[in-house]
Each structure stands twice: as structure tokens, then as C-alpha cells.
């Protein structure tokens, strides 16, 4: 009988005793046979507790296994290694995961039973065929002006928040979760929250926020906290996205996935790569960081003929606020835009401190306009960008020549910059602006400038929306 046929019978797993080498999170087992690449492994320590692992490389004599939960406490002689003959899989079903809390590996943390209904699913997922994808173009109103007006989020998009340590990215993410759901009237929605290496209090704040906004029963949380093993962080987002894909594409739900903090994920990846002795590329991160991140971020989108969608909001803290650091840099190359938080705005007391200039939503142009938001949306947003960019130059000039010596037009730009930050960017943590409120506000602001400066909007639009703003303000 060929060994392959035996392998599908889970009772006949192959077990080996003894490790020939232990290094960092990796162990080497010799004398193995019939083990496949990427296979899931269970490691039983001499004290009897079980750890999970994965085959990283395999030759005819030996296998290299990555141990989640780390290798400390393992000994070379008595450790038993069981090869499960299948890749890392989880079982998910709608009733068994929503409203629940799991570990990064998908084990229940809330005392409830592990899900057992349904097929086991490979957590690595499969790439969506580009032919099968439906182009994302459904506007999601978040009620936040800087996002709705200038960096519009659409269903099926992956739009990360680039933040810095200490900035209120979690508050912003929570506000999006609270406010965005209101628009999803017709179909059911779900929120998947995956934490990678975050502090306990951060995870708890999210949980409370879900509870207070009454959505807790639509949330599944996958928590890998700061004191959990780093290697487990590599699995956590994949487990979470497997659940998200299932809810979206089989249960027709609109799923919003929050991944925080991707920086911790990348650190864990670097840690594991280094201990494997791989050739590092930039800043010690492995050369495949881009492909690895893509295998997470690309698991967002819509599919033709299926009702649901997966929208991702990954959060990452830029080390030293540096947007050119490999983590934000590679993320920006994969995601469909980014929302950038700015320390200077934060110091000015502006919430959310979104700096619109480096922020971007690539899918915006297809999600806005007549029939979706408003006909003037594209132009007024472009005008706001141009005006704010110009006003920043004027601010720099003013810091050299002084405000007094600015030209008449430049003075108007100077005032525009302040008003824009104070009235458009700044809003309350519970303030939920409709899209027309946001756009009207934008018009109020650009009308501070002389009409000759408004080259990105048409004269008709100025007539229709700009003049209306004057009337509004006089009332």
C-alpha cells in the first residue's frame, strides 16, 4: 500500500521522538519520512503540553519545523513530534464564531467550545482569480470628512491607517466601525478583529467599543496579545481572514476586517527569518516581505455573483513616523491607498489627525460622483487638495517672511489652511457627518479663496454649490 493513501486517515499520523537541533523558534527533526512541505505539526513536550508548528523545509532525511509558542522548555531527547499530514486549517461556521473571542491560532479564549461544524479550511487561502473579482465601487460612508470627502472608502477595498505610536489610530478605527455600519442597511454585516502583538488594554478597548455600539454579536475577535509568542502572529491574520472570506463569500455578509498592528506582524516575520539564517534585505526584513504582506492584504475584495465583500482596514504604526520605512512602504504598494495620521496635527489638538496630502484612496474615483455620492465630489475634492497643498507652501513662506508680508491671495490661503484643519479635518469622536455635509463644508472653505484660484472646479459648480455656500453662511 502506498503511504499517500494512509496519510488521509487522521488516525494514522506519523509520530517521531527526539529533536536533532533547536534554534530560536525552529527545530530540526531527523530520520523522518513521508512528511510534506507546509504541513501542520504538533509538538508534545516532555511535560505533556502540546504546541503547534509548521514544516518550513523538508529533505529526505530531515524536516525544519517552526514552532508557534516558541521552543523554550523543549528538550532534544523526549520531545515528541507529530506530523498531521495536512496544512494549517481551521473550522468556521457563522453561528460558532460570531460574538466569540479566539486566540491567534483560532482556539477559543472565551471558555466556549471550538467550532466543529463545517469543513476544515486552509488558513493560507487561495488567490482570487482576477477574472472572478468584481471591481469595488460601492461607497461606504464613514461619517469622517477627511475619509468620505477626500479619501473615500469603498466596499472590498483595503485601506490601511498609517499611524505613529501614541496617535489615536485605534479611536479612528473604532469610529469607523461604529459609523460605517449604518449604511449597510440591506445585508448583514460582520466585523473581524485580528490583534497581533497589541497590549491587553487596547484589545479590551476595542471589545468594549463593540459592546457599547451594540455590535458585539456580529464580531469575531482573534487575539494575539503582546505577551503571546511572536511566531503565532504570523498565523493570526490568516486565521482571521479565513473566517472573513467564509462569512463574505459563503454567508453573503459585508465583512470589515481590522488588522492591528501590522508592524508587530512584520517584526515577527523578521524574527523568524533571521533565526532561519535567511539573507536579509532592507533593514533586516526578509526579501519576501512584499509577497508575504500581499498574501494578507490581497484577501480583500468582491467576487462576481456573490453578495458579500471583505473590506480591510489594517493599522500600522510607522517606526519613528517614517513613511519610507519598509513596512509602510511595502504596504502602500499593495493596499489601495492609505490614511496617514500626522503628529503635528495631533499636537494642534486636531482629531482625527489625518494629513490628507500623503493620504490616498485609489478606488475613490470609481466610488464617487453622480448616483453614488454627488456630481461635484471629484472636483471639489481635487480643489481642496490643491488649495491645501498650496496653503502649506504659503505657511512655509509665512514662517520666513512673516504673515504680514504675504500677498493678498496668499493671506487668504493662510487663513484657508487654518480653517480647513479646524473645521474640515477636525471633528468629534461621535460626530457623524453625511456626505453632503462634508462636501458643503468643503465648498464653504474653498469659497474663502478668490474664484480665479478655483481652477479644479467648473464655473457651473461654483454657481450651484459655491454660491449656495454663501447663502448658507448668511442664514
Amino acid at each position, binding site marked *: 500500500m502506498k503511504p499517500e493513501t494512509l496519510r488521509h486517515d487522521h488516525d494514522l499520523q506519523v509520530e517521531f521522538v527526539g529533536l536533532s537541533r533547536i534554534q530560536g523558534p525552529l527545530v530540526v527533526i531527523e530520520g523522518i519520512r513521508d512528511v510534506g*512541505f*507546509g504541513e501542520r505539526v504538533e509538538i508534545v513536550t516532555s511535560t505533556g503540553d502540546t504546541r503547534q508548528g509548521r514544516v518550513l*523545509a523538508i529533505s*529526505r532525511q530531515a524536516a525544519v519545523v517552526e514552532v508557534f509558542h516558541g521552543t523554550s522548555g523543549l528538550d532534544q531527547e523526549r520531545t515528541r513530534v507529530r506530523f498531521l499530514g495536512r*496544512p494549517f486549517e481551521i473550522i468556521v461556521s457563522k453561528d460558532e464564531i460570531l460574538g466569540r473571542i479566539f486566540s491567534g491560532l483560532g482556539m477559543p479564549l472565551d471558555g466556549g467550545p471550538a467550532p466543529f461544524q463545517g469543513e476544515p479550511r486552509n488558513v493560507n487561502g487561495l488567490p482570487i482569480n482576477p477574472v472572478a473579482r468584481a471591481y469595488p465601487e460601492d461607497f461606504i460612508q464613514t461619517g469622517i470628512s477627511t475619509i468620505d470627502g477626500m479619501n473615500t472608502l469603498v466596499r472590498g477595498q483595503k485601506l490601511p491607517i498609517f499611524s505613529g505610536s501614541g496617535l489615536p489610530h485605534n479611536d479612528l478605527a473604532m469610529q469607523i466601525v461604529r459609523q460605517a455600519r449604518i449604511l449597510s442597511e440591506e445585508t448583514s454585516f460582520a466585523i473581524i478583529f485580528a490583534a497581533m502583538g497589541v497590549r491587553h488594554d487596547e484589545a479590551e478597548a476595542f471589545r468594549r467599543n463593540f459592546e457599547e455600539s451594540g455590535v458585539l454579536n456580529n464580531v469575531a475577535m482573534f487575539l494575539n496579545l503582546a505577551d503571546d509568542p511572536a511566531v503565532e502572529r504570523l498565523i493570526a491574520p490568516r486565521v482571521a481572514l479565513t473566517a472573513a472570506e467564509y462569512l463574505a463569500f459563503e454567508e453573503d455578509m459585508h465583512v470589515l476586517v481590522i488588522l492591528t498592528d501590522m508592524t508587530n506582524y512584520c517584526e515577527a516575520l523578521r524574527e523568524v527569518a533571521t533565526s532561519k539564517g535567511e539573507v536579509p534585505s532592507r533593514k533586516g526584513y526578509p526579501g519576501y516581505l512584499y*509577497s508575504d504582506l500581499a498574501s494578507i492584504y490581497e484577501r480583500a475584495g468582491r467576487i462576481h455573483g456573490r453578495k458579500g465583500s471583505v473590506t480591510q482596514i489594517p493599522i500600522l504604526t510607522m517606526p519613528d513616523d517614517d513613511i519610507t520605512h519598509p513596512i509602510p512602504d511595502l504596504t502602500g*504598494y499593495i493596499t489601495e491607498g*492609505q490614511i496617514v495620521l500626522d503628529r503635528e496635527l495631533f499636537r494642534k489638538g486636531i482629531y482625527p489627525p489625518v494629513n490628507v496630502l500623503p493620504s490616498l484612496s485609489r478606488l475613490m474615483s470609481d466610488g464617487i460622483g453622480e448616483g453614488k455620492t454627488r456630481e461635484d465630489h471629484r472636483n471639489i475634492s481635487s480643489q481642496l*487638495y490643491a488649495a491645501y497643498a498650496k496653503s502649506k507652501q504659503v505657511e512655509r513662506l509665512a514662517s520666513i517672511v512673516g504673515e504680514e508680508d504675504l500677498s493678498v491671495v496668499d493671506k487668504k490661503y493662510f487663513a484657508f489652511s487654518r480653517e480647513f484643519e479646524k473645521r474640515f479635518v477636525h471633528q468629534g469622536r461621535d460626530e457623524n457627518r453625511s456626505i453632503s455635509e462634508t462636501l458643503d463644508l468643503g465648498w464653504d472653505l474653498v469659497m474663502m479663496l478668490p474664484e480665479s484660484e478655483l481652477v479644479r472646479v467648473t464655473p457651473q459648480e461654483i454657481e450651484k454649490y459655491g454660491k449656495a455656500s454663501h447663502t448658507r453662511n448668511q442664514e
Partner: protein
Amino acid sequence: MSLLHDEQTPIVSYVSGPVVKAEPGHLLSMNEMVEVGEERLVGEVIGLDGNTATIQVYEDTTGLRPGTKVFGQRMNLFVELGPGLIGQIFDGIQRPLDFLKEKWGDFIRRGKTVAALSREKVWEFVPALEPGVQIGPGMVLGTVKETEAIVHKVLAPPGCHGTLKVIAPKGRYTLEDVIAEVEGPSGRVEKIKMFHRWPVRVSRPYRKRFMPSVPLLTGQRVIDTFFPIAKGGTAAIPGGFGTGKTVTQHQLSKWADADIIIYIGCGERGNEMTGVLTDFPRLLDPRTKRPLIERTVLIANTSDMPVAAREASIYTGITMAEYFRDQGYDVALMADSTSRWAEALREISGRLEEMPAEEGFPAYLASRLAAFYERAGRVETLSGEKGSVSLIGAVSPPGGDFSEPVTMHTKRFVQCFWALDKELASARYFPAINYLESYSAYISAVSSWWEEKTSAEWKKLRDDAVEILQEDAKLQNIVKLLGEDALPDDQRMIIEGAKLIKNDFLQQSAFDPVDTYCQPIKQYYLLKVIMHFVDRMRDVVMARIPLFRAMNLPVVEKIHRAKYSIEGEEVEPFLKILEETDQQIEELLKRSREPENEA
């Protein structure tokens, strides 16, 4: 019996991601295509050392175990070339994605599929030769109307020499049907079908090369007028994320006046390929008025698809491009992004434990890049026609830093460099091509074309405009310190002129139905009216009239709106603007003289 079989089949001895080793290696040859295991995962031999063959597998290797059989294909990694390429979307190793969807549903699995080109589809073949003629490789045997826009020429396959014995009469055939028989010098008869195979890593032969001299028109003003690319030329678009590389690539593939567009999405976003797939069947080619998809071949190896196939996708694309070139077509190939391809090289090199050079990239990065860009060119084909392959590669430098290895090496091998600028992009100034850092080596080569099609002063007009932009850049340093008001009017004039060029000429909206494509004649006149106005401003300054009076003339507003309001190849409205400029400036000059006279 089984023992004998084992000796003839290499088996897997090691697996790490896409790198697989097999023994004994002597049964395989370098760059041979292999299929691994029962699932028949496609791979390529990339190293032979002692008795071990190193294989790069183009698909996910999870679950693969030592002891699995490896089946050599006795052939290097190839693509199928024949009718049925156009309008299709393939992955990096030419698996048809449409078919994969039919077979596996919405997600891509792994393993062997069907042939790349449909064997069922029936084509109308029209013979071009009579029996009895001598033929050689690359000769046109007949034609197939592949789409409304493209007549596919059926070429004699490589290595085919001899007398044409039989050729099929006009009629309907599938790719499996023999359409010709050729008797070689040795008397052996070769049966020819409408398609053949070609190894992707070998460039296809041609008779001779020409110097590029005809511009590849893109309808994008900053490119066509300022930094033109020629048919058969090479260009690179480097830029950090969010600077509009992909939008620029899409604009080029939509509007470039090539006969065939090959678009390679190499390690980029899935949704972008979907965007192309949704847009191209709807958008019309401005010249043929046919949907763009009828002249396009798409290759999608998105970032979540296996990395090794990403490495191959570039070669798959360029081989198809050369094939259409050999039919006498002008082909433009867009590769978005070559950095992802270089990273795939790096990743595989790392797994092979090769000695890294700069930033972990293998030492052969530069020579691979050079070899890729060298496959561009304008040639006389084996059948005596003229065809070209123009290569436009996007580069994604980490952190937007152009001093990294991929950008640096690319710069050495391309003739056009369209540098995208983060600051321009964040002010939503698109296309964000930095006019100071960019360059093109084709300007003098294409200027005679422009002078013939537009006006003899084209080159001068362009050079004057560039000069104003350069002077403006110098003045901007002062403006940053002191403000515009601090400058005298003759210098402010430069700044105002540069503003007109930047806002009303260079800036072009990809989303505006009129502005998205700009005809050469419109480009010329648009620049002409701006430069004419700038010239007339000199008179205003000379007459010591405050500059703002000139800027407040009603004609300025017309210049601002010209790119949106004047459509197609209309010339009349531009002439009118020129006339109005003169009138209004004259009037201004006259008015300024009058009060003096009265006084």
C-alpha cells in the same frame, strides 16, 4: 519493471517554498520544463549540480513531499503562439484565467490545466501562399481575422525550411488542424498547424534592426511633447506608491497608438487587473473605434499569486510581443512593475543561497534587466515587414528612493525616464511626471515627424517651454524665501508663464472624457497658445504695465479651459484664442499709452 521506471524518473529530495531539488539530476537538462507530482505542478530546472537538479516551481508547493516523481518535459519553458491570444487574460505561465475560473471557480488552485490557446475555437484561415514555394521560418503562410482590429498572420514555425507541399484552402479550422505541409531538404515532411511554441527566455529572430524614429503617441502631453518615446523604444516610470504609476501605465495602454498592447500585471493588485478587465471592453481605441480589448493581451500575476511565476510573467509577455512584432505590428508592452519581478529574482536567489550583491539582489540583476530591455526594438521581420516592440516598465523604488539598485540599473538601459514625483502627486497634480528630472533620448529622433505633422517650429516651441520651466525652477528657490511679490515683473512673467504651462498644458486629467486623450495637433496648438501668450506678456512687461493686468485678461480664462473645452482635432478655436490674445494685449498696450498722451 517498477525498478526500471524509478531509474528513469527523478524524484524530489528537498522542498523549501518554490525551490525543489530532485535526484538524479542527469535525467534533466538546464531550463527544462518539468511537472512535479501527481498534480503536475509546473516548474523549470534552474540549476544542475552533481546529481541534483534545482527546480523552480511556479505554483504553491504546500504538501509536496520528498519521494514525489518529477516528469521532465524535454523542452524549455515555452509559450504557445497563435490565434486566440488577443483579448485573453493569462497568468505568468500562460494559463488562461478565464478557463481556470470555469474549471475551479473563483479561486486559483494549482496543477496542470489545459493548453493556453483554445483547441475548440474555429478560425477562418485564408492562405497567402501557393504550394511549391520555398519557405523559411517567420514567413506568412496565411491569415486569420482574429478580431475586428487585428488580422493574425500565421507564421512558419522556427526551424521550418523547405518546399511548401500542401496548404489548406480557405476555410474554417481549429488549432489542431494541419494547415500546411513542408518538405525539408532531407525529404522529411513537416506538418504545420496555426500555432507553434517558443521558449520564453530566447528572443525571436529578425532580419535587421532600425533606429527608432517614429513617436509612439500616447495622447499624454507631458510624454508626447516633452519626453517622447519612439516606436521600438524603451522607457521606465519610477515612482513611490501613490504617485500614479499604474494610472499612467493604464493611460498608455489605453491610448498608445500601437497595434497591439501587452499588459503585464506583475506582482500588483488584483483589483487593478479587474479594473483593466472592466474598462477595456468598454473603451474605444481612438483610431480604430473598436473596443480596446480587441488589441490587448493581459498577463496577470497578482501579488498573491506564486512568486516564481511572477519571474516568468515578464518573459511570457515579451515573447508574445515579439511574436506580434514578427507579424509586422507595432507592439507596446507595459510591465507593472519590474521591481516586483526583481524581487521575485531576489526571493528565489535567496532560497538558492546565492551570494547577494546590493540590498540582497543577486549579482545578475543588472544583466537580466539589460537583456529584458534589449528585446525592444524596431526591426525588419523575417518576412520583410516592419514591426516594433516598445517596452515601458514601471519601477517601484522602496521609499521612493531612486538610488536603489532596480531603478539605478534600469536607468542605464532605458532611453526615456519618466520620474514620478511625490510632491506633485500629493497636490493631486497628475500626471505627476517631474519635468526637471525626466528625460528622453528620442527628442531629436522624433522631431522631424512632429514638424511634418504639426509645424516646423515644433522643436523650438518645446525647447522654449522647457527653458521657461527650468528658469521657473530656479526662481522658485527665491519665491520660497521671499514670496512671489518680491520679484520684478520680468521674472514674475516667467513664473506666470510656467504656471500656465504646468496647469494648462502638462496637467492632464485621466478621468475627464475630453482631456484623457490629446491629439498631436491639439498638443501643438495648446502649447502654441500658451507660448504665444507668454511672448506677448514680454511686450506688456516692456511697456511697464503691471503684469496682473495681463493675467486678468479674459483670454486667460479661455486658455485655462482650452484642454477641456476644445475637442478632437479642432484647430479653429485655437486660432481664435491666438487672435484674441493679440487683440486684448494690443488693447492693453494702447490703453496704457493713452493716459500718457492725454497727460
